[in-house]
């Protein structure tokens, strides 16, 4: 293979951000959940929620992870953080903290999937997660002050009580909350403000990498815009690296440098955002993009209507998992390959990786550039 996605590409990125070396390298990650059945609750099958996923995220950049409900996005995030134990694969993370303490072992990267509890706890300060639903992730019986103090107490850092309090005030300011309101409870805030509390908590310990799982999906568009701006500002200010999970392709395009598209547990395409949106190389990416409803009456787009829904991940189609819905597969010379042979993610020129046997033959349609207004 000439160049694997794990090697990434040259960093470009917005001027104000410094983009550096790989911070996270996910290699062949797998997470299978057992399916139990019968009275004995024996394992009768497996849901291959994540099945051989590899990607690299460079320091200061944002990787967007998109795909339809149930394709495994959340599981990728949770497995990297070891909220789920991976079935196989590696998640290599460049931990300054462990390196400083001489605990990183050889090399510059530590494998999160094999770290022991003690070291994992230290690394957790550097890798944080923001959740879609702040309601279920914020303890309703704790004040904002207590919620934001907790990470310092758990990790026994932050200095004296006064120092921590000062840090809480700073954090609230950073995410646009009024520090006077720190004695309030989550339910006394709006949905957008609660999401800000979740962001502040994730930032409390100065993480390097933030895995944001649908952080704006539940918000009204005006609040969604405010939170997206906030995440972008914080990235520049604090040098953060994001894995941004979402199903909204417009939002993902806006915030991401790199975009990975998942289908039934596998990556089907990985590329720089502008390449993926302009020139998709996978039929699924093309269909997803064509399905987006754009709020501009001048953008007339040919819609590719995919048949049916996503097949069950407990019983995924053979060969290319997309072949049952792919409009390019039914041709006689293609189907025998599409429904038997699993396409590997391979380089399709430039900095674009695709998992389709016929990517080189297909002429796919991307998103038009809207007239600037």
């Amino acid at each position, binding site marked *: 293979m000439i160049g694997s996605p794990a090697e990434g590409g040259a960093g470009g990125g917005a001027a104000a951000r410094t983009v550096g070396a790989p911070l996270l390298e996910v290699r062949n990650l797998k997470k299978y959940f057992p399916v139990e059945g019968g009275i004995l609750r024996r394992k009768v099958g497996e849901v291959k929620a994540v099945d051989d996923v590899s990607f690299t995220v460079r320091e200061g950049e944002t990787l967007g992870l998109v795909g339809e409900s149930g394709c495994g996005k959340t599981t990728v995030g949770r497995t990297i953080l070891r909220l789920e134990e991976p079935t196989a694969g590696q998640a290599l993370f460049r931990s300054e903290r462990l390196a400083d303490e001489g605990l990183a072992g050889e090399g510059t990267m530590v494998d999160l999937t094999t770290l022991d509890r003690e070291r994992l706890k230290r690394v957790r300060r550097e890798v944080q997660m923001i959740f879609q639903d702040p309601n279920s992730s914020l303890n309703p019986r704790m004040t904002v002050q207590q919620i934001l103090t907790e990470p310092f107490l758990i990790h026994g850092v932050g200095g004296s009580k006064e120092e921590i309090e000062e840090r809480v005030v700073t954090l609230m300011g950073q995410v646009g909350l009024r520090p006077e309101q720190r004695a309030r409870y989550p339910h006394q805030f709006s949905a957008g403000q609660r999401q800000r509390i979740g962001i502040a908590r994730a930032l409390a310990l100065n993480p390097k990498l933030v895995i944001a799982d649908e952080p704006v999906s539940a918000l009204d568009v005006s609040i969604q815009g405010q939170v997206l701006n906030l995440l972008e500002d914080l990235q520049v200010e604090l040098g953060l690296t994001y894995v941004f999970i979402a199903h909204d392709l*417009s939002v993902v395009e806006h915030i991401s440098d790199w975009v990975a598209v998942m289908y039934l547990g596998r990556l089907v395409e990985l590329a720089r955002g502008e390449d993926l949106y302009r020139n998709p190389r996978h039929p699924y990416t093309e269909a997803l993009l064509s399905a987006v409803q754009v709020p501009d009456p001048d953008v007339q787009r040919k819609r590719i*209507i995919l048949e049916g829904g996503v097949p069950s991940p407990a019983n995924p189609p053979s060969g290319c998992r997309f072949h049952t819905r792919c409009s390019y597969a039914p041709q006689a010379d293609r189907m025998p390959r599409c429904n038997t042979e699993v396409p590997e993610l391979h380089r399709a020129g430039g900095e674009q990786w695709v998992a389709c046997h016929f990517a080189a033959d297909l002429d796919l349609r991307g998103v038009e550039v809207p007239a600037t207004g």
Partner: protein
Amino acid sequence: MASDRSTDSAAATVPATSGRHAPLLEIRDLKTWFHTERGTVRAVDGVDLAVGRNRTLGLVGESGCGKTVTALSIMGLVPPATTAISGNLLFRRKDGSEVDLAQIDPHSRTYRRIRGGEIAMIFQEPMTSLNPVYTIGNQIREAIQLHQEKPAGEARERAVEMLRQVGIADPEQRSVEYPHQLSGGMRQRAMIAMALSCNPSLLVADEPTTALDVTIQAQILELMQRLQGEFGISIIMITHDLGVVVGMADEVAVMYLGRVVEHGPMRPVFKAPRHPYTQGLLRSIPVLGAQVRQRLQPIEGLVPDPRATPPGCRFADRCPQVMERCADEPPLFEPAPSHLSRCWLSEAGG
């Protein structure tokens, strides 16, 4: 300001207005208020709208602006105990007569006939209108028999036919399955089949695709457009997704805090929005294909508490163009033909 809803009576039927272009439904100064312990919520507060035959009206706005309450008011489904409704809901019935739905008892025979038979509603979450303990086919059959005198066998056939119409493969088999055996997209199709089974003239769709993936959303929107063409129905399409409105609607009304702030044909509203709120909504969202990381310019601040709506223009405290005059509430101006905007800036045609 509780309205005295008379019971079912001929008095509520106003004479049909003449003219071919009389709308199917005309909403005049609709107010639906909830009296709660912590104050009155003016959920819908003086809304005027009209839906033409075979047309789609898009109703957009952020959470809590009153979209669903408007829909429930039309359907006569607002919880009664604490509610006050006033205004007119003039609906042209299939027999040509016109009835003011705001004047008749929601439990009356007339309303029950209209609800489901002439105006049908579909919801964001299909499980709110599908009963988990009955098969899909039985539910549709029952809906048909509620409104049409049909023997069971014929109604059952019609149910299967409707499932076929909405693109459900193997409709005979599906009709004997229960809602939980269907995927989200299929449940939404089944709900549409049920809604259309009695040939309504108006379909009120409240966020029908919000819970669905984009590829399934595209299927459902295409289905709704096809069925509209085939059955000639009018649609009120409620959504917070501006893209969905562009794809579906002929006309758009933008709501904010219980009021319509902008209203007009779809194209001008999106290409040349007049109200700062509409302009702000469009600037809040990233546009697909924009390529460069353009900073979003979202509307600042939060929607005020609906129990304490600000005097004057309700958008004033978030409006980037607020002026002294905005302390008085602006009426709906018509800055361009059929294009209405509730903003002082629109007074001089701006």
